[in-house]
């Protein structure tokens, strides 16, 4: 038992060390910008444009269900018009960035890990290296920059759709007064809330890209290896996002004076 725990811990430490080395290599490559614009634009298209449906549905239904639940509770104490304010702050600070990141981790993280993992098992990564191309420059950097750009934009979109959906549900389904609903939302939702969401999304984008690329590049040989790398990329990036979100909330809360 002790042996197994020791092995698990040493494997975990080794993985952490390797991902740190890959991050270092990525930062060095970013400083000299060896990626091609064409690759970068394709990745932004793949991560940003192709994730539209997932993000729109997630944002809309999260806003609607949160709005309905908030209304059910607030209605008991005659605070119906505060519904959109609660949804606005929740979507901006937490739900927008976290749910968007989780959905993108599932769609994009899996795709990145599977693509790079397949390249590894079919010797395409070795071929890149023989063609004097560093795999980090060609595979990791464009994906990292693209997720850093796309995820904050997708998050803003999810927040806007979530708030809009909540407004529609509140006004047309639950019968809340639209003027007071909107005014309360404007009073209690600040620019800083949106900024917090964007900062979190930027960091989550990096987490998704780095974990997915790392899992792909170190994927065990064979079809089973690619499958395992894909699953691990999604699971590890989702868990890391949830854990990081807690600490980011505390750190940002302290920085902006909420604590």
């Amino acid at each position: 038992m002790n042996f197994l725990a020791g092995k698990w811990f040493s494997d975990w430490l080794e993985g952490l060390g390797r991902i740190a080395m890959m991050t270092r290599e990525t930062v060095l490559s970013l400083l000299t910008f060896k990626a091609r614009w064409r690759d970068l634009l394709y990745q932004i298209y793949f991560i940003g444009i192709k994730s539209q449906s997932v993000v729109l549905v997630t944002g809309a239904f999260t806003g609607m269900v949160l709005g309905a639940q908030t209304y059910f509770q607030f209605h008991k104490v005659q605070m119906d018009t505060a519904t959109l304010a609660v949804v606005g702050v929740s979507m901006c600070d937490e739900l927008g960035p976290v749910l968007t990141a989780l959905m993108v981790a599932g769609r994009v993280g899996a795709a990145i890990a599977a693509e790079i993992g397949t390249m590894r098992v079919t010797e395409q990564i070795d071929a890149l290296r023989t063609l004097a191309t560093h795999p980090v420059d060609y595979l990791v950097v464009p994906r990292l920059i693209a997720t850093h750009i796309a995820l904050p934009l997708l998050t803003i979109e999810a927040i806007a759709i979530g708030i809009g959906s909540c407004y529609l549900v509140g006004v047309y389904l639950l019968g809340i007064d639209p003027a007071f609903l909107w005014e309360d939302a404007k009073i209690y939702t600040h620019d800083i809330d949106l900024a917090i969401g964007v900062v979190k999304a930027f960091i989550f984008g990096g987490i998704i890209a780095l974990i997915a690329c790392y899992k792909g590049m170190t994927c065990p040989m064979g079809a089973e290896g690619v499958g395992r790398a894909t699953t691990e990329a999604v699971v590890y990036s989702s868990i890391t996002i949830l854990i990081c979100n807690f600490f980011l909330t505390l750190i940002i809360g302290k920085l902006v004076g909420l604590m």
Partner: protein
Amino acid sequence: MIEVRQLQRSFGSQKILDGVDLRIETGESAVIIGRSGGGKSVLLKHLIGLLQPDGGEVLVDGESIGRMNERQLLRVREKFGMVFQGAALFDSMTVEENVAFPLERKRTLTAGEVRRRVAHALEVVDLPGTEKKKPAELSGGMRKRVGLARAIVYEPQIILYDEPTTGLDPIVSDSIDNLIIRVRDHLKVTSVVVTHDMRSARRVGNHVFMLHEKKIYANGAPEEFFASQDAIVRQFIDGVADADDTLIK
């Protein structure tokens, strides 16, 4: 010139190479033969720095590459082209994009010049007109030829071939051998071919190395090597399971 000194490499507890020594002169066409799973491809990957040795040294033009990091190796690898056993073409790209890849990464040529050189490389490997096809639309032999076109398009000094004829029918194998000879003679490159195809080894090599029991067991010019009376060498050349059944006794 490539020199390997006392190369050692293990995977886990299994030792694959244990004190390999070899020297390949500039312009030479070396063939490395040996049994399947004997470490030929592992040795080849050490020559270009895809694998790092546990012990010993690999020198390319006098420069030791065994302890270089990935960025330092990129400079050394510009001298090399490599043809993989499974071709290792980028399956998201067309044939043209695959062959153009090393030229476009360098960003020193105009688009027209890249297209011209790609067309010429595809002509050398007898595959003109396939530019717009995807690797999945090509046969195994055609994929290997595209792999060769990609390896020669930037005119490297050394080309490594990892089992170029494995899995191909005898006619396609012969055409691949012809291509290797044509590239060797026209571009005056150093060639290193890993194979267990004896016909191919006789045709393309002017120096044969036999890897056996984790070491270079025998080496020499093809005519001298293939006339060897050594039981182990004969067993491999004649392709018999039992050393006592060799054709020359």
